[in-house]
């Protein structure tokens, strides 16, 4: 572990402060302090060789921490619940989470995948459509505040449109939900320079439906969310 440099005392007389800083100065960042072993190890220390740090010496979670939540129990959201008002969109609880990131992360990668089965009917003037939107909140170094980055969020939203139907009738004979219109959605994104703190990942649902179709629903049979923080 070639990191502690030699101690050079410049004062002509022996000074207690010099000795103190040479041995224990946790906040000084001085490489001569033996305290450098507590928080001061850097790239030099794991460049390889017999005196450097090997991966097995390092505890899991030191450089990377991840979270995954997968589910295979159906979640239903009904048209009766839906609003397009920003504050009233329905949170998809299985595709939402809040993760604590215990250290300043160089990058945080995140994403979700889900199999959506949505009722969407055909209407010449207003075809029905469901929308999903991911909201992320984190703390970035540059702003030092909670961030809701519009660009990152916009890249993670989408539509679940009315799709293929019977070739002779607007409604398929079996009713709603022609399976050809269902979507398997997989999206991911990345933030850089994220500070220690909570990372919130929230997917919400809205829809444009005929007023008579409040009993239309979107089902999610399976899906998952993941967050990976790297130093």
């Amino acid at each position, binding site marked *: 572990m070639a990191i502690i440099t030699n101690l050079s005392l410049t004062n002509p007389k022996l000074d207690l402060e010099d000795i103190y800083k*040479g041995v224990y100065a946790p906040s000084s960042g001085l490489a001569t302090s*033996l305290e450098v072993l507590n928080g001061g190890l850097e790239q030099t220390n794991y460049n390889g060789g017999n005196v450097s740090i090997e991966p097995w010496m390092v505890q899991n979670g030191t450089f990377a921490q991840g979270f995954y939540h997968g589910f295979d129990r159906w979640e239903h959201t009904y048209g009766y619940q839906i609003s397009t008002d920003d504050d009233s969109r329905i949170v998809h609880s299985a595709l939402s989470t809040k993760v604590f990131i215990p250290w300043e992360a160089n990058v945080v990668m995140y994403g979700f995948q889900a199999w959506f089965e949505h009722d969407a009917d055909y209407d010449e003037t207003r075809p029905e459509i469901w929308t999903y939107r991911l909201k992320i909140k984190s703390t970035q170094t540059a702003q030092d505040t909670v961030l809701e980055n519009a660009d990152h969020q916009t890249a993670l939203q989408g539509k679940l449109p009315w799709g293929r139907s019977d070739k002779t009738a607007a409604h398929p004979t079996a009713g709603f939900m022609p399976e050809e219109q269902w979507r398997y959605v997989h*999206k991911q994104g990345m933030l850089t320079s994220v500070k220690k703190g909570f990372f919130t990942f929230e997917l919400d649902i809205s829809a444009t439906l005929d007023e008579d179709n409040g009993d239309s629903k979107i089902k999610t049979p399976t899906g998952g969310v993941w967050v990976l923080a790297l130093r």
Partner: protein
Amino acid sequence: MAIVRPDSSTTIDKTDITDMHENVRTEINAVPASNIGRGCFNHHHFQASSNGVVLFSHVENELDDAAISSNATSELGGFLLNKENVISASLAQSLTSFDGKVYVLVQFNCQIGQYQTAAGDNKNPEEEVMAIFGISYVYKNSLGITSSETLKAESVRCVHFPHNKLYDSTSSAKTQDITVSLSCVLKFESDEQELTTVNAIASLLRGAAPTSPGWAADDKYTILNGTLTILGLRGD
């Protein structure tokens, strides 16, 4: 570890202090790997994110609608010759300052919007038509020579447009809205010099024998909400 300390009843001077420090320093600096315990270091022992496993990172979002009208007339062979850049990340990222190999994780996702005529009218896509996506890159080798643009073959994805029997030209019912997601890992040897650019590319792929009503040569499709993320990681 044996640390030499001043004798009792002698005067401690500067040299004694620096000598003791030198003793400790030398011992600690020379601790061999075999004397280090398993899992004895955690995040408290290392400096902040600047000394982690991430060497470089880059995020590029392209949220506006774009149209892809290039036609790849054959599969991979014609893709690079007939592609359009969905997102182009000009990195000029030097690799020479990193020790060892560098692995670069590239991920791209976007959404296919609509299939259209050249005039921008919505059109019901035929079954012989597919959207094709991939990731390409340009780098400088160990001699500093810039490579030609290379397609990372395992990143390539083809997507069929759903055929809609009730399609009409006035409503927005023809919206496709298919999520496209692809990724790959680029590996660079320790003597390779620079990752110059990374591109998310797209084209249109057609069957050889169009059927009635058939596709038109200048058909296109729209894409939106694209994200390209690039992550450089320390290799072994």
